[in-house]
């Protein structure tokens, strides 16, 4: 499988704070990953982990402060509007809010055919609308509706239709199931899976919900404070998480079974802000297994396809005893 998207040492910095004490901080602090053709890669993290910023940086919506992004062998970081335009044709992005990412005064028909107009592709708008809507399982009568007349699931389908309009090679989907009821989430995931198979698309899926990616992702990365704490094939990570944070995330989303053993990992305190990163391992302030070494020395993520940035990876034996706060 050849590499489609290659990200190396990517950093995104912002400035924030009160006027006189404005400080620079890194929302994304150096990440590397590859996405192969036709592969689905998932970025998992909680609010403030920098996952959305990372996606925007890859797409060129957010200037990066260090590192490189290559798409199909071509460096695309720092490309200007005109040079970036052909890249955007091959790389679509879907945004979090299903309704809010649709321009409110355009009809569904105008929305799904907008890529053709932007890229001056000659096409019959009505035929294309009908084709795209049927691809995502919407009735052609939806073409005249406005976004506020759609349910969340329907709006999400319109977003998908627009994303695949110009046969892209990569779709970056930010929280594709956010704001949808459980019974509708499956529909959207099935649709993405189906289109991926049919069109040979690669996908980057950003989410906070581990269970969502279990069913769609080939490989995944877990983000914490703008860095990857664990990466690898998703099946392996789900089977045996190596990083304590991954394990905590997995246990925090329990399966609905009243008889299941209560083996959750409860994290004390809240995530620190990227403006005040802890020393050593950045997770040690919340880690149930943190040892003295963790507070002083930053662990490196080593290994091949499967990596975890932890001094004492789970399942590797020599791990210090858990502290009181675990349940």
């Amino acid at each position, binding site marked *: 499988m050849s590499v489609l998207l290659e990200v190396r040492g990517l950093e995104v910095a912002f400035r924030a704070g009160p006027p006189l004490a404005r400080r620079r901080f890194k929302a994304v602090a150096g990440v590397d990953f590859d996405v192969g053709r036709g592969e689905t890669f998932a970025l998992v993290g909680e609010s403030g982990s920098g996952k959305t910023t990372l996606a925007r940086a890859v*797409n060129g919506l957010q200037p990066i402060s260090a590192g490189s992004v290559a798409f199909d062998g071509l460096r695309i970081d720092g490309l200007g509007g005109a040079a*970036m335009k052909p890249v955007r044709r091959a790389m*679509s992005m879907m945004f979090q809010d299903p309704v809010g*990412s649709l*321009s409110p005064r*355009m*009809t569904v028909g105008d929305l799904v055919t907008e890529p053709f107009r932007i890229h001056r592709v000659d096409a019959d708008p009505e035929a294309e609308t009908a084709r795209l809507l049927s691809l995502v399982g919407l009735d052609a009568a939806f073409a*005249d509706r*406005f976004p506020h007349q759609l349910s969340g699931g329907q709006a999400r389908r319109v977003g998908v239709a627009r994303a695949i309009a110009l046969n892209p090679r990569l779709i970056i989907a930010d929280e594709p199931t956010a704001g949808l009821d459980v019974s509708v989430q499956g529909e959207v995931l099935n649709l993405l899976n189906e289109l991926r198979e049919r069109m040979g698309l690669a996908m980057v899926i950003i989410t906070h919900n581990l269970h969502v990616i279990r069913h769609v992702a080939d490989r995944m990365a877990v983000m914490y404070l703008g860095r990857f704490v664990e990466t690898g094939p998703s099946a392996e990570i789900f089977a045996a998480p190596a990083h304590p944070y991954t394990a905590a995330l997995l246990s925090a989303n329990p399966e609905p079974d009243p008889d299941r053993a209560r083996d959750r990992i409860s994290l004390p305190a809240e995530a620190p802000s990227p403006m005040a990163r802890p020393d050593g391992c950045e997770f040690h302030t919340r880690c149930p297994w943190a040892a003295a070494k963790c507070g002083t020395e930053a662990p490196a993520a080593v290994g091949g396809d499967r990596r975890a940035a932890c001094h004492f990876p789970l399942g590797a034996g020599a791990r210090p005893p858990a502290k009181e706060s675990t349940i």
Partner: protein
Amino acid sequence: MSAAGSDLPGAGRLPTSARLLRSVRRVAREPLGALGLVLVAAMIGGAVFADILTAFEPNRISPRDRFLGPSFGHLLGTDQLGRDLFSRVLHGGRIALSVALLSTAVSLAIGVALGLVAGYGPRWLDNLMLLLFDSIKSFPTVMLALALVTLFGPSLTAVVVVVVLVNVPGYARIVRTRTLSIKESEFVDAARSMGAGTARILRTHVTPNVIGPLLILASMDIPVVIAIEAGMSFLGLGVRPPTPSWGAILNDGFAAIRDTPWIAVAGGLPIILTTLGFTFLGETLRDVFDPRLKGRG
């Protein structure tokens, strides 16, 4: 509770004329809207058909008929020069209406352009323009009018310039604020991610979402414009005599208010009725089409 009405009857696009008719019906269904429609229609009708509705010329001086009270011949009486007040009121409507339309259109055009630039342009330009808007707004309207008239002399142009100067900072600010929030919205990000350029984003994604509410707010400003014209003419800073203007009539009446109060009544009544009419209409338009704007000053 979220409405589950996902299968609404296809409220697609209708032809413009049908939509307009439907809008008028929706406004007329509200009592206040109906009243506003009647008052505004009467004012526009009076101004357009002024020559048919009255036999008197607005500026013909008739010394024998000075200070006549209201009667069947002279519905609103005559003024100190014996001019028929009803005729002057109808013709004054033309002045009020043309000033209102002209200056609102000019203010809107300038306001939208400046607001888009401030909202979508670089930060420093935004700050500079805000400063400019605030500086212009920091002159009280009358002071601005007085200063400008000192500069240009009294004229209808001066009135339009004053109105534009008064309105533009407000409109531009509204457009700027909305542009800023639209700029951050996901649908603009989506357009950018599809490769749309700035011009396209401003044209198809920003302007359509800015212009609707602004038009409604501008329609609610029409009474203010009419008041500015009348006020300046009342002070002798607007139209030059003998051109009939409601403010000028009011000024004539004010000079003789103790003995012949009907002149002041004749000058004030059309101002009250039209400003009320346009306000009621504007309020109803807003409530019907954009309830979110409610509560704006």
